[in-house]
């Protein structure tokens, strides 16, 4: 589903974000992407969603080479991907329903379908009673659940999670992980995190990044800081 082939990313000031990184993630696989700050985790996620382009190497997403010069399907690519951020990126002037609906509105779905799907996702993340509530009235854990619902809506094939438990306490982090467990095997999930407890407990595939290089890629791996 996602293939990195000798991908290098150099930033304008000359520092290297990624250095000849290669890996392959299969369809519906759950992969932890770990490493210290500056190791290149977010760079990998940004390259997958075409927020930036690699200096060299090839990236294939859903069998499409997104690094080709003539690639102009960024909108289509992003519609296959749901993104979850550490800082939630929930719009404060929209209620929970409207925030989740954004994921479908941008693809031009009719309002009856949006209503139906949003309700389904709200139930899935245990927030069915918060439909008309505004973000300022929710806790951090609830906001992250809203972000997950927004990422899942519209049957997106790939979920990219950038430190989704980074701003949460351990108990809430585990609640979030329970939701990820529910979608495991149904979506391709790339989960960037620092959280050693979660990585070591779940025993999933772990890609360890260090100084822009792929340090380790283990099936049922663990992670030590």
């Amino acid at each position, binding site marked *: 589903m996602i293939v990195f082939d000798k991908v290098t990313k150099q930033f304008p000031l000359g520092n290297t974000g990624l250095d000849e990184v290669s890996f392959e993630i299969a369809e519906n696989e759950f992969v932890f992407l770990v490493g210290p700050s500056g190791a290149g985790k977010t760079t990998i996620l940004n390259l997958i*969603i075409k*927020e930036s382009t690699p200096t060299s190497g090839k990236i294939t997403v859903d069998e499409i080479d997104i690094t080709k010069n003539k690639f102009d399907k960024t*909108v*289509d*690519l*992003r*519609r296959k*991907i749901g*993104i979850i951020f550490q800082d939630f*990126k929930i*719009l404060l*002037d929209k209620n929970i329903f409207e925030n989740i609906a*954004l*994921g479908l509105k*941008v*693809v*031009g779905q009719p309002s009856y379908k949006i209503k139906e799907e949003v309700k389904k996702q709200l139930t899935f993340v245990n927030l069915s009673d918060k439909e008309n509530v505004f973000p300022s009235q929710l806790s951090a854990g609830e906001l992250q659940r809203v972000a997950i619902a*927004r990422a899942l809506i519209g049957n997106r094939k790939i979920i990219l999670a950038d430190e989704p438990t980074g701003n949460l306490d351990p108990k809430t982090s585990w609640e979030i992980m329970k939701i990820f467990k529910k979608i495991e095997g149904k979506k391709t999930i790339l989960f960037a995190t620092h959280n050693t407890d979660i990585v070591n407990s779940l025993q999933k595939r772990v890609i360890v990044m260090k100084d822009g290089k792929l340090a380790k890629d283990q099936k049922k791996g663990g992670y030590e800081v």
Partner: protein
Amino acid sequence: MNEILKSIKRTPYQSLAIFLILFFTLFLSTVIFVSLTFFYSFLNYVETRPQVTVYFQNKAESSQIFKLRDELTSSGKVLSIKYISKDDAFKIYKDLNKDNPLLLEMVTSDILPASLEIYAKKPIYLPEIAEYLKKQSGVDEVIFQKDIVNQLVTITNVLRITAILFFGFLMFMTIIILIVITSFKVALKKEEIHLLQLLGATRNYIRSPFMKEAAFFGLASSIISFAIISLTIVYFNPFLSGYLRGIPTLGLNFHFFQLVVWPINLYFMLTTAILSLAFGIIISTSASYLAIEKYLK
């Protein structure tokens, strides 16, 4: 509509600034448009009047006038000549002053002169014809329209160039101000735009609310500016009627139709309204488009 109202509430001062600048531009543009159409129509009117009119003394015999007419016709320099007898002149006078019985009572056909209305084949013959007529016996006055037409052409050209320059400056200023204000609005939605891009929104989807809001402002400001101008025209209509008495219609001739400017009519007002609306919407949406495009790059 709800989204537009929400956005206006969220940024009331920027919205007010957009509305005021658009209103100012549309008001001035419509005033310029109405004034120029009046000037051009008046110029058209004057140009279609006889180029030389010769009035004869009361003692002049009609045979003397006809002789002069025939001489002019045979000169090859005249396109047409219309003879207006004393009786014809009185009929015209009566028709023009039918609403003013006092003026009708004071005048009889005796005091109105007979005249010839002469249209030259080429404007260069006009001075020659006028000079020739002045030397003839029985001629009271020769009115040579060329000077009036030339003056009007000069005035209208100066007005046209001034209006174009002023309009260009106004457009440039308005678009720059609108781009700056809209950029503020776009910047306030920076996070939302970025999120929409990551969710796979197209450029059109992101542009759409800004464009709709811009169109709303263009529409609202053009309606209000047009309403104020219409009321002003209605208010000044009696004064204009006084000034333009004797002129039945003023209009602009295009290939397929004639736009009648005076008397003020529904068709002219509708044309002005449509142009004002279209201009308002085009200018506001263009500025909005440019502001967002700069941001989406």
